């Protein structure tokens, strides 16, 4: 296993820069997830680490070695592809052993390693089958096995779960977490699914428009998003945003939107601008019988244990999560209070979250 360092990494396709100044250090044994919407440059970044894409500028280190000019096969990394890329004309066992054979590993050693990996991934019964005789989940495990069998320094995974159906994805996610922690492997994982990112990553590198906008633990990314984009992208359902005016009223900072007023908590009293974007997550609210914010219910979505309620508050559309036991129907008028401890303010110009002295 090894650490990986990406330094000032750029990728240009002609005039278009698709990866811009990426700086990420991944520790030995760390599970790092690149997460972001499609087209944000996460897969391109991964492909540069593997060596399938040339680097326009910057440096990539695996362990202590600069690998910029090394071909993929010499980087000692293994990759799991989204569509698995299994060799369909070979049996599972040959798929698993092919890379070892090509590297001249002793036949007996190949058999041992294939057997061990097959056991680890529950593929023993399928070793003599061809990929097309396997289910999606089994193919995925073969693809994973093909990476594991080589004991590479780093595992690179490009949306490996996205071709699985919902239930299988959940199960495979858990298995993948168990497997990588058992192997203590360094993993770089790419996904657009923020739930996958939150559950699997030791740290997340949230990307947008070719840049890493936040690099932190899942908790920090969720609770202290760097900007409006991160706040909106991470967390489901997404955070609510409102354009607000801030004024001072009898020595208290107060925010005002078109239909309500809210006193800012003391921790935010140092805020000095007159305009901001207010953000709060749908579950950081409390229903009240009157006062607080009020709005008309437009849509009610039952999610099981909770209900997602869409409200029209003044000119704004907001969503809130309430326990499923609440009896709410559309058209109804609803009042709620926002939990001020989890209130976020973002700068209107650059949309960065405003930090207050109590936070680190």
């Amino acid at each position: 296993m090894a650490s990986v360092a990406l330094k000032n990494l750029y990728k240009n396709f002609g005039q278009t820069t698709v990866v811009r100044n990426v700086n990420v250090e991944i520790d030995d044994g760390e599970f790092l997830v690149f997460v972001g919407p499609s087209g944000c440059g996460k897969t391109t970044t991964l492909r540069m680490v593997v060596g399938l894409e040339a680097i326009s500028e910057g440096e990539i280190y695996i362990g202590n070695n600069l690998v910029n000019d090394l071909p993929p096969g010499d980087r000692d990394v293994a990759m799991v592809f989204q569509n698995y890329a299994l060799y369909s004309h070979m049996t599972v066992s040959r798929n698993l052993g092919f890379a070892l054979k090509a590297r001249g590993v002793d036949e007996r050693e190949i058999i041992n390693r294939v057997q061990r990996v097959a056991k680890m991934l529950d593929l023993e019964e399928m070793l003599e089958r061809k990929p097309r005789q396997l289910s999606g989940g089994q193919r995925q495990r073969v693809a994973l096995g093909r990476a594991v069998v080589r004991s590479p320094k780093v595992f690179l995974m490009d949306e490996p779960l996205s071709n699985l159906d919902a239930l299988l994805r959940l199960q495979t996610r858990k298995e993948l977490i168990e497997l990588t922690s058992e192997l203590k492997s360094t993993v770089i994982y790419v996904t657009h699914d923020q739930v996958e990112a939150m559950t699997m990553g030791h740290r997340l590198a949230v990307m947008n428009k070719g840049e890493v906008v936040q690099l932190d633990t899942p908790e920090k990314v969720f609770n202290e998003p760097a900007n409006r984009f991160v706040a909106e992208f991470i967390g489901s359902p997404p955070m609510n945003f409102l354009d607000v005016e801030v004024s001072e009223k009898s020595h208290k900072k107060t925010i005002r939107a078109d239909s309500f007023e809210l006193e800012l908590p003391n921790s935010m009293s140092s805020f000095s601008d007159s305009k901001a974007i207010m953000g709060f997550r749908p579950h950081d609210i409390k229903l009240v019988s009157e006062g607080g914010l009020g709005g008309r219910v437009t849509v009610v979505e039952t999610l099981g244990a909770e209900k997602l309620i869409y409200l029209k508050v003044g000119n704004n559309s907001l969503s809130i999560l309430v326990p499923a036991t609440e009896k709410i129907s559309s058209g109804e008028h609803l009042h709620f209070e926002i939990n001020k401890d989890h209130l976020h303010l973002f700068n209107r110009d650059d949309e960065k979250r405003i930090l207050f002295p109590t936070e680190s």
Partner: protein
Amino acid sequence: MKSQSSVFSILRIFVIVLIMFILLAPFLWILLASFRPNMELVRNQSLIPNTLTIENYVSLFGKSGYWQWIINSFIVATYTVLISLPLIVAGAYSVYRTHYWGRNALSLFLLSVYIFPTALLVVPIFRIFNSLSLVDSHLGCALLNTAFAVPFGIWLLQAFLKSLPPELEEAAAVDGIGRMRTLFQIIIPQAAPGIIAIAMFAFIVSWTEYLFAMTLLLSNDLHTLPIGLTGIVFGQYRVNWGFAAAGAVGSAIPVFLLFLIVGRWFIRGISAGAIK
């Protein structure tokens, strides 16, 4: 509604039958004609025969050089396939995968071989082949067929290769598998249906080739099927139509059998090339 849809389906069946008839009638006519006496064919070309005879086949199989021609055609076609396949695979892989200056222009230029009317090439080809001592040899004939089979074969196979997921090669590259090994152990097996289809194509190009075989194969005992048959069909004063039909059937049978054996791959290969 129901009667409307049944009228539609009857109409559809009628159209299908009509198209099938238009497509298959010539073949049916040839098949039937091969069992008719030549004199009857001269007088009456209708589809329905008056008398049936196996006289044409008796003279084709028994009295002509049919078996020798078949063997010769088979030798030339096999040479053609053996020489053209490696060139087609290498060429298609190069066009599809490698990057070099002028690649696109080159791949377009490939098909320009077919621009020239082949009759124009007969004399120069004969002179060139003569100076290379390739006249009157099956190998020479196969080389020429190769020249005509390779460009289209490359074009067809690279379309097939494009339909393979690029991740296969990327996975191999990440696993440290060299390019040649990737080509032979991953790309070629994956493209097998396309390659077999193209081998069939090269075989048929050679099997049906007439003009250059006529020019290059001078000795009677080297003649391929198309030359041999024309020699007999076109007599000095008359054309033996019944025999011609039997000859056409007799030359189609080996190819037909080949299709039966590998037809499944042929269809898959053709359709992959057509869609992508």
